[in-house]
């Protein structure tokens, strides 16, 4: 089996000797590339089998463009699936209906015909619909494939169980039993404080679709992510050497019940950047030190057993450190994760009604990013980050945009912390 690659980077290649210091360590986890390796895995088709349930909101607010695009996206999904995959569709408003139960994707036209008849009506029984979607998946659990519910909604749960904590806890409970949940929120009126944690605890992805036109693109990203999934149930422990202390892990990961960092699923083609800040005591020039031991626990998609990858990072101390020679990737990773925190801080201020404060926080983040990344300002990722901060900051001036701005902040912060590429 191919393991993910773990690399360590520090701002300077060597640490300065003779003084206490705080060191940013970038830990980059790169899942192996997706390759149909027929020689080593006889039954491997190049991607895991999928067992999906689309849970589609058809409440009144979906009427018009949103409903049309959601139907199109669902049909796109049908088109992309293989006969070995399974798909079920659940629709919901105040009633929850199984449009069709989990079936092999062999008769695509029949599935699409059924989807075409879904129109908007009624209010939003989100919880029950999600449970029903989970049930269609759980009828035919795949051992090694991916069992997932994709919940698509533009509204607030207002029928049945509506308590956020309760639904999020259940989503985690279901993930622990082998079915993950992704959520797609459309527009400005859904509850990101429900849909994001639901996907995060549910082992899936959280997406925000601003314009109905983006639906299809998000579906494609979600499907590609499923196909590229390398490992799930990923956790990390960092064990500092004696005399070294972990001050902070900038990604703000949740902890597992055994105190490890809970990491997102590993996807081929999506490296995950983690930054740990360490306090390191004074060492002699020329000496070497094993700074950090890393243990990465994960369950590969094509295996039943959890694996543990162990690696250590050793650094060298030098009497002088060349200040001009810094690692851009470390600077960028630190700054982007700090910006994720700034976005969360801005959200808090918005919630407190302090819009000027929120705008100020984002302005500071923008200034800091420009300063820190000045020597590589032309890097596309840096330009996008600056544009995103500037745009959200200015959108805060518009009262009508507040709900949407908050969602943009929430999702951008989450995607940076979990290594998801922005849409």
């Amino acid at each position: 089996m191919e393991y993910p690659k773990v690399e360590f980077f520090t701002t300077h290649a060597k640490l300065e000797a003779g003084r206490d210091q705080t060191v940013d360590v970038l830990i980059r986890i790169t899942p192996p590339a997706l390759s149909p390796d027929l020689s080593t895995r006889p039954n491997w088709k190049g991607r895991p089998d999928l067992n999906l349930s689309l849970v589609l909101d058809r409440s009144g607010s979906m009427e018009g463009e949103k409903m049309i695009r959601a139907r199109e996206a669902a049909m796109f999904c049908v088109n992309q699936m293989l006969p070995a995959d399974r798909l079920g569709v659940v629709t919901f408003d105040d009633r929850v209906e199984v449009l069709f139960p989990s079936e092999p994707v062999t008769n695509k036209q029949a599935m699409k015909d059924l989807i075409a008849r879904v129109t908007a009506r009624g209010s939003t029984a989100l919880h029950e619909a999600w449970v029903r979607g989970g049930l269609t998946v759980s009828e035919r659990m795949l051992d090694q494939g991916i069992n997932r519910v994709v919940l698509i909604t533009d509204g607030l749960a207002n029928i049945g169980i509506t308590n956020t904590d309760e639904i999020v806890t259940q989503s985690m409970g279901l993930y622990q039993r082998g079915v993950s949940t992704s959520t797609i929120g459309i527009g400005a009126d859904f509850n990101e404080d429900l849909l994001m944690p639901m996907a995060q605890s549910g082992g899936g992805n959280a997406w925000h679709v601003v314009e109905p036109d983006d639906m299809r693109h998000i579906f494609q990203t979600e499907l590609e992510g499923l196909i590229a999934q390398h490992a799930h149930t990923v956790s990390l422990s960092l064990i500092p050497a004696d005399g070294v202390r972990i001050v902070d892990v900038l990604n703000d990961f949740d902890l597992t019940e055994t105190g490890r960092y809970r990491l997102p699923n590993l996807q081929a083609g999506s490296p995950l950047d983690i930054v740990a800040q360490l306090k390191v005591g004074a060492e002699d020039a020329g000496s070497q030190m094993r700074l950090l031991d890393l243990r990465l626990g994960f369950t590969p998609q094509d295996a039943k057993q959890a694996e543990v990858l162990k690696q250590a990072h050793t650094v060298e101390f030098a009497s002088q450190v060349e200040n001009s020679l810094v690692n851009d990737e470390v600077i960028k990773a630190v700054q982007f994760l700090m910006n994720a925190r700034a976005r969360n801080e801005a959200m808090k201020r918005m919630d407190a009604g302090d819009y000027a404060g929120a705008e100020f926080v984002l302005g500071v983040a923008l200034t800091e990013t420009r300063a820190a990344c000045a020597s590589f300002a032309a890097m596309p990722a840096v330009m996008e980050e600056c544009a995103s901060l500037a745009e959200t900051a200015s959108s805060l001036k518009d009262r009508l945009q507040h709900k949407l701005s908050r969602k943009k902040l929430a999702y951008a912060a989450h995607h940076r912390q979990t290594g998801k590429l922005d849409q």
Partner: protein
Amino acid sequence: MAMSVLKEKGRKYVGLPEFARVSGQLVSGLQLEQQRGTVTSVPDERTIRYYLAEGLIQTPEERQGTASVFSYLNLLQLLTVKKLQAEHLPIRKIRELVAGKSEQELETLLGVRGPAGKKTEAKQYLESLLAPAPTQAAAPPPQHLDASSHSWQRVEIEPGLELHVRSDYAPPATTGKTRGLLERAIHRLRRLRD
């Protein structure tokens, strides 16, 4: 490894030496890292006795002659303790995680759940979520009742330790509360010993 642990399901081990031998083999199979030389990676009889005293492994109720009869649950408790130790967790935290857990929960913690278990688990879970919420338990019995109207039952936990239960006592409803109760009990016992 998963299979070999699950194969032990339902088995009993008569006496400490037998229990130590089987669990030793399984622990070697777990390929746990030895923790900085402070903890032996394969449990011997002494270690197991220590775990029993610390309440990390539940004391077996069943006996054959003078020998304790250890169960599959005891085995899972021991393996989980070893696994969590290898993950550098303190004993206090390990006790919290292991105490009061069912076989199923320990299998999940160990990461050895069989696919068969998993297959129906999600479905059962979701069905339980759809079921209407259980109605509130009957109103608690009125307070300040004359104590003489209750009877007490004595339960022997192990030689030398008895539990006295009043007839109107209801055991804790959740795993969390059970764990809390066990911890309080262990704490009280310790204070007696110290």
